[in-house]
């Protein structure tokens, strides 16, 4: 968090200075001569975008609103389309995303939408840019910037998240295209440890991504997902989550990330999917809030929790969990960043047919409104459909 000036002051000269031909001075305490601290200027971290980042983060974290995650990669989107008997073509993806972004009044309950790269550059079936439609709906466009998970060498069969190469120019380009926030999802697996290496890598990758995103005007959503797979109980999840978040924040601090300009996407603290002891929404809320209280600096404006539909949760359960977390005041806005928990019923209702678009959009709006109420702690669960209550577990779920 130090401003750049005194990060450079170090009694031990780094290699680059030696290479430049300066005399290598012995780092003795009394004759240390380093570059003097730069004359103090206002410590503006995150380059010139600081104010905008803070404003964008606050807008996304506005009361009664949350994020619609619609950034499924083409492969993953293909699975969704296949589930309703549709081919994975660009036209179909375009049709589906058009359906989502044009839901009338969506902006009342949704403050941000995360897009996949293809969608960021797409137009709706009416020929309007997707980002323009979103902005008109008062929804901030976001963009997934990671390049997926790959095996982590030297670990216990764990993964790490790629995407730092060229990230600066990509984020700059996305900003030009209209994106104002970014998302990077890394994972940690409890059955595989997690090893200290995997946790460190996940945290450091997130920290670097966050710093680079801010440098290019995008509010980074920081998402270290603790995978649901496993037989472990809620205490173990809690323990691992505390460790992971401690590392994430420490490394972000080291990377001079502006905490007022980030958002978090934590996984709620629950038992593992195969654990025989289940937890009530109140228990999940209690553990998750405790985690947040112990690890999240109040400067962070918003916590956009992810759901666990892949872990057997239903849309309604996701809403109930969020509602339970908003029964008393929190130092940060606690809201949702849901993909399937918002889209599931909508997708099924659409089934790929134009005549079903209106009904599908209504279904999405119903979920969005329910989660909006949950964000305000006012969700009652009345009038929920059966579809919304069905769980959907996929073992070893991978994006």
């Amino acid at each position, binding site marked *: 968090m130090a401003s750049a000036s005194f990060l450079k002051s170090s009694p031990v000269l780094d290699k680059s200075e030696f290479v430049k031909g300066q005399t290598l001075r012995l780092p003795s305490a*009394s004759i240390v001569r380093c570059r003097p601290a730069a004359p*103090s200027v206002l410590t503006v971290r995150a380059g010139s975008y600081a104010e905008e980042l803070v404003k964008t983060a606050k807008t996304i974290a506005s009361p009664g609103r949350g994020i619609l995650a619609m950034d499924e990669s083409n492969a993953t989107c293909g699975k969704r389309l296949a589930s309703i008997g549709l081919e994975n073509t660009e036209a179909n993806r375009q049709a589906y995303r058009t359906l989502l972004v044009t839901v009338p009044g969506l902006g009342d309950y949704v403050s941000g939408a995360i897009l996949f790269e293809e969608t960021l550059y797409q137009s709706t079936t009416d020929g309007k840019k997707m980002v323009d439609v979103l902005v008109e709906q008062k929804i901030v466009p976001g963009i997934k910037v990671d390049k997926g998970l790959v095996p982590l060498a030297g670990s216990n069969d764990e993964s790490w998240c790629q995407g730092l190469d060229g990230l600066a120019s990509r984020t700059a380009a996305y900003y030009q295209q209209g994106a104002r926030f970014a998302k990077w999802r890394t994972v940690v697996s409890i059955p595989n440890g997690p090893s200290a290496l995997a946790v460190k890598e996940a945290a450091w990758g997130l920290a670097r991504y966050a710093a680079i995103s801010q440098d290019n005007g995008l509010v980074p959503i920081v998402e270290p997902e603790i995978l649901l797979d496993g037989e472990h109980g809620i205490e173990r999840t809690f323990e691992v989550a*505390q460790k992971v978040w*401690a590392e994430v924040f420490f490394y972000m601090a080291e990377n001079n990330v502006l*905490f007022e300009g980030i958002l978090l996407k934590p996984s709620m603290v629950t038992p593992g999917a195969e654990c025989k002891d289940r937890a009530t929404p109140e228990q999940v809320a209690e553990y998750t809030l405790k985690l947040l*209280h112990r690890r999240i600096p*109040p*400067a962070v404006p918003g916590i956009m929790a992810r759901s666990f539909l892949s872990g057997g949760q239903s849309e309604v359960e996701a809403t109930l969990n969020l509602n339970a977390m908003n029964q008393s005041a929190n*130092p940060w806005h606690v809201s949702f960043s849901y993909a399937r928990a918002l889209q599931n019923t909508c997708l099924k209702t659409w089934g790929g047919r134009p005549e079903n678009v209106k009904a599908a959009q209504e279904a999405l709006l119903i979920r969005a409104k329910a989660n909006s109420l949950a964000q305000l702690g006012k969700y009652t669960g009345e009038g929920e459909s059966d579809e919304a209550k069905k769980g959907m577990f996929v073992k070893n779920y991978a994006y």
Partner: protein
Amino acid sequence: MSCFTNKYADELVKNAAYIGTPGKGILAADESTGTIGKRLSSINVENIEENRRSLRELLFCTPGALECLSGVILFEETLYQKTASGKPFVDVLKEGGVLPGIKVDKGTVELRGTNGETTTQGLDGLGQRCAKYYEAGARFAKWRAVLKIGLTEPSELAIHENAYGLARYAAICQENGLVPIVEPEILVDGSHDIEKCAAVTERVLAACYKALNDHHVMLEGTLLKPNMVTPGSDAPKVAPEVIAEFTVRALQRTVPAAVPAIVFLSGGQSEEQATCNLNAMNKLKTKKPWALSFSFGRALQQSTLKAWAGKTENVGKARAAFLCRCKANSEATLGKYQGNATLGEGASESLHVKDYKY
């Protein structure tokens, strides 16, 4: 286990929260024998046990003062001392609704290879000492780590060493029923501006909380005693509102909401300055999930000492001065201090001593 839970967990949480009760704060009366000697000599009083005892009795038995306090930090000698009529000080405090605390560190020593940076000693046998202090009535402890700002300071080494020392101390305290006050003081000495102090404070606090988390310390059962974020002692002064903004912002960026209270050290500020700054912080309209209060030594006792001057006939006057500062700071925790509370002699005097060593 993510953070230990033992038989003291609930008590630690309760006591830590109590310290942060609105309208209350901590009197740091834990000056070591050597340090209190300096205070006494400044008013021409001999540094003998009886005088040290008298001074503390003067403070603790000031009518009305204990209502403004939630805790008093004691030096070991004082923990076992009594009033002139034979009542143990710990009982006086407890009956007044004040938790007794105990300084447990053993001072600082220099870190080899640094430019005069230090680490704090005291971990050896700390567990047994804490258990003993708990039996004697102490319910919280204090350990002061010291860092300074310079061209190359604080170094990574000094930050790491002090943060991890604090974390070890904190874990051991909690094991023995004492709420640890985590005190990473960044000295005010220097000509740096407030931004530099803010950046260093944020860096140090981030490291401290990383260390505490690594050591499985239960944050709900701890307190933080940081410096306020101010310009260096040789730099131009700024208004209390500016200090408040920079300080609270630094804390928002580093201190998880689980920590119930932050009790500032006064570090050489005058009595009045310290109170005004604390007041400004409590008036600030922004996210503050922890209580913001005081843990003042010099900034509570300065004018009291001057008024006392070691003479029995001055006790009344001295107590009035002490009560005045207690009330002022109590109001400051509520953002209600109006300023210039019947200024005792010395209330506006800077208490800064360069390179201050306990």
